[in-house]
């Protein structure tokens, strides 16, 4: 009786641990957009639809604010920089002088791939 009880408890623990590990197997789970960001995306798309006179759209929306690129400094080198929805302020005397001073909305919707390549 005791042995079967221990086997039952061990089985329960094993099944619990495997279910926990399988649930957290995704290392970087995709997080959805906040309702505010989603509303902004829909707003931009609605404006474009209104221009096109088109009602339907079925692709999934993706919004990102990223800076992608690679560069090698020096003469005779190549560089490629992709800024998407970013605000870059250079340091110096005029730091903070230029660019948007109040509220700033940067919305980028890209359906296809984003490729940045230095070769």
């Amino acid at each position, binding site marked *: 009786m005791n042995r079967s009880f221990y086997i039952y408890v061990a089985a329960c623990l094993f099944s619990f641990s495997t279910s926990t590990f399988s649930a957290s197997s995704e290392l970087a789970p995709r997080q959805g957009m906040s309702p505010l960001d989603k509303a902004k995306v829909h707003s*931009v*798309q609605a*404006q*474009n639809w209104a*221009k096109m006179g088109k009602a339907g759209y079925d692709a999934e929306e993706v919004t990102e604010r990223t800076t*992608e*690129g690679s560069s090698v400094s020096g003469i*005779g*080198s*190549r*560089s*490629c*920089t*992709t*800024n*998407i*929805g*970013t*605000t*870059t*302020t*250079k340091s*110096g*005397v*005029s730091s903070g*002088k*230029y*660019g*948007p*001073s*109040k*509220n*700033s*909305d*940067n*919305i*980028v*919707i*890209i*359906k*296809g*791939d*984003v*490729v*940045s*390549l*230095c*070769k």
Partner: protein
Amino acid sequence: MKNLMKTGLAVGLIAVFSVATANAKVSIGGNNQQSVDVKGAVSNFAMGAGRATQNLASNSGKVTVGGNNKQSVDVKGAVSNFAMGAGKATQNLASNNGKVTIGGNNKQSVDVKGAVSNFAMGVGHATQNMASNNSED
């Protein structure tokens, strides 16, 4: 004498160019709204030692907007920017580059249905900005 004339002409051209660039200033007292709708693709190529700059609904240089600023670009196709050889390709979509001052609210949006690619090959320089703000001294 011939060389002196050539030198004088070169200096003159440089002077004219620098004066022209120094005076390139845009000042908008009220609101600013820029929108571009492209049905096809958008591409920008710089080859050899060439320089290709493409601005869509963008502010570049010394620009002052007193009121609100709204920039939008809608592209149905793909967007590509290539710099090959020693070329320099710069592509701006709904972006502000340089000494751009905005007094009011700012809204920038880019909607691209296709892919976005940015390539630099050889010793080329490719810069691509979308709904971005880059200030400089």
